[in-house]
């Protein structure tokens, strides 16, 4: 594979990597990506970093929690819920 083509191929792969990770690509495109990855260590390295990014995002929620729910607010929410239930 010529270096220039290789780079263009990589660009096409880069554009599809999220859909590939999310299993949202059609089987044909998946096979194309797998075939490319088999011979392209830089794309594997890039895919791994993207995969890691997705996992880190899932675990990134802060330790901050909302202030405790006051009794008045709870009563207000409960009243809205009861009213809604009564309409069913």
């Amino acid at each position, binding site marked *: 594979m010529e270096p220039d083509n290789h780079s263009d191929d990589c660009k096409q792969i880069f554009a599809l990597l*999220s859909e590939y990770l999310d299993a*949202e690509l059609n089987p044909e495109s998946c096979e194309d990506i797998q075939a490319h990855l088999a011979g392209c260590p830089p794309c594997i*390295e*890039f895919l791994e*970093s993207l995969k890691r*990014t997705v996992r880190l*995002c899932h*675990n990134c929620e802060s330790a*901050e929690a*909302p202030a405790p729910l006051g009794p008045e607010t709870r009563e207000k929410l409960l009243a809205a819920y009861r009213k809604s239930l009564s309409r069913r």
Partner: protein
Amino acid sequence: MPSPQTQDEIELARDLLAGKADAFDRFVEVFRSKIFQYALMMCGHREDAEEVAQDTLFKVFENFEQLREPERVRAWVFRIARNACYMKRRKSVFAPTQELSLDDLLPHSEQDGGHRKLEIADWSALPDDQVLRSELRDVIQAAIQELPEIYRAVILLRDVEELSTDETAQVLDISPESVKTRLHRARLAVRRTLDGYLRGIQSGVEHGTGQP
């Protein structure tokens, strides 16, 4: 197939619709914190996030009988939360949208002895995902919060809250294709920020100044 976490939420929604005794408090406990976290990342202000959590829950309970499909409870709640966030629009975090270009988000490459090499950090240096250092968490949160709103909205729902592509499309009133496009660019932008952070650490280590 919904995830186990989602399955619990669906059961909770069914219990709430059936008027089961403890369902109300369980629902508040599960969703209040979730909405607060989402709103904090979306709006960037704790005070706004507290209000969004409360306003959202009020609207949810006020209209609960309208939830026809308990299977959609998560998307339904986040749609209300998203609208509550929009009511809190502040210029700094809801600035006019700037499109992210795919080309700008890809790493540079260089020739190295006949092989092409990407200029990216050594990602194996990252700590275990489950025990994120607070500094790394801050970097990720800042990277998400700095995204233009249309990208931030998608990555928060898809990758942080783990809604499906279709659910995210319903919450945001956009097509599933737009969800996919925006998600990819958002991930690439966050990846680039993380990569820069790692390279900074690794360059510091090389020069004996950084934290390993």
